């Protein structure tokens, strides 16, 4: 088949190209990199969707957030509402790739590539995000836990395009965090990641959502960890019980970044740091974004700047 390329000016153009078998590209930070690494060849027929205005923009609706599929990680980290009310998502977008990745990589690409190690997936799942999928023949809303079916696998049809992601507004008293275990601060993929979204009501945990990243074939919530925290005082014992449940609820693989045993052991450690951070934020304490850097410093290790200073 001869190669073809079109840049869609409208959503209709993009949908008809997808219907005819083209594959979409936005920032190219997964599709093109994957091809370079030999994971999958570039598609013969490509439709660029990065110039379609209605796929962009962050909108604050009364009932929540609308993220256009083309919203970049850079835009997410710069958004005041996300930093304040959907902090875990900002924690995640702030540590995706490098500044070059964040300038062009989109939230839509992240969601549709369905990597079990993607940083933004856990926060979106815990905030109960829904994907708006459109094809030439119609539109449907699909919760992310139904969209992701396996590593790199989704329940969407190839003719469907992700238009936007909808995230309901969290109730007052909610705090959230995403923390990953990383060997370097940038250009890293999570070795282990945990998201926590907790709501406090009069000193006790009224609601808890906890999700694991790079610890199972898909990013998923851990019901036992949520149950261990819900109704508790959010104290040390409850956090430890939830962290143990995260570790027990994981089914990691061994690869070049870490063995399955190491990942399962670290799952509990990262879970504890994440839950502590989410609870602190729910209490109104300031923990800077990204939480991965903040909790590393808080855990007693030197910060990057501190380590550099000590070496001089």
């Amino acid at each position, binding site marked *: 088949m001869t190669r073809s390329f079109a840049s869609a000016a409208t959503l209709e153009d993009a949908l008809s190209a997808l219907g005819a078998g083209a594959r979409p590209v936005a920032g190219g930070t997964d599709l*093109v990199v994957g*091809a370079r690494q030999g994971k999958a060849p570039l598609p013969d027929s*490509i439709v660029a969707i990065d110039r379609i205005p209605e796929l962009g923009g962050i909108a604050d609706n009364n009932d929540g957030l609308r993220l256009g599929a083309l919203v970049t990680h850079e835009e997410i980290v710069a958004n005041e509402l996300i930093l304040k009310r959907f902090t875990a998502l900002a924690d995640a977008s702030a540590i995706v790739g490098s*500044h070059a990745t964040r300038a062009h990589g989109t939230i839509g690409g992240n969601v549709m590539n369905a990597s079990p190690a993607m940083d933004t997936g856990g926060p979106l799942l815990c905030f109960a995000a829904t994907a708006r999928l459109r094809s030439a023949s119609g539109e449907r809303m699909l919760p992310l836990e139904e969209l992701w079916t396996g590593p790199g696998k989704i329940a969407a049809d190839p003719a469907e395009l992700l238009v936007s992601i909808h995230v309901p507004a969290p109730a007052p008293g909610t705090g959230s965090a995403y923390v990953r275990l990383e060997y370097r*601060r940038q250009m890293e993929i999570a070795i282990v990641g945990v998201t926590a979204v907790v709501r406090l009501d009069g000193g006790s945990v009224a609601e808890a959502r906890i999700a694991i990243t790079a610890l199972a074939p898909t990013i998923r919530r851990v019901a036992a960890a949520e149950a261990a925290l819900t109704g508790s005082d959010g104290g040390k014992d409850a956090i430890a019980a939830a962290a143990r449940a995260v570790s027990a609820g994981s089914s990691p693989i061994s690869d070049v970044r870490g063995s399955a045993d190491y990942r399962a052991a670290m799952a509990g450690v990262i879970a504890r740091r994440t839950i502590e951070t989410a609870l602190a934020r729910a209490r109104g304490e300031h923990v800077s974004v990204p939480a991965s850097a903040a909790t590393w410093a808080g855990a007693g290790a030197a910060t990057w700047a501190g380590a550099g200073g000590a070496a001089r």
Partner: protein
Amino acid sequence: MSVPATLTVNGTAYPVDIDPHMSLLEAVRDVVGLTGSKEGCDDSECGACMMLLDGKPVNSCSYLALQADGREITTVEGLADGEELAPLQRALLEHGGVQCGFCTPGMLISATALLRSNRDPSEEDVRIALSGNLCRCTGYTGIVKAVRSVRSAAASAT
């Protein structure tokens, strides 16, 4: 089948006719003929190919050239004003921030992007921004010092 497009590099428009799979790096080096940007890893790990696309840093080895049609592309060749080096380029020379020079075009672009978005970056800000740019000589100390010196000059000028 090749597709016609216009690549605007450092203010000059180049009409090109290229394969849909061609990367922006290949197009700029092999079709336009500007070889300042380097191919290191060719899969977005090392940053040697970094360019600015509409002012934002991009790993050009992993970006389809046709997607850059009509956008503003800046490469290392576009930083100097004729024979007059940009302050960042002078600073790299002064602080010994260039060893073999292979990472230098990407480092310059990456640091340029940083200084445009943050006029007064801390040492940690500089190290984080440049961490997508690998120096195979491991000469990071001089590079970070150079970027910090430009920051200090820019900050004290305002």
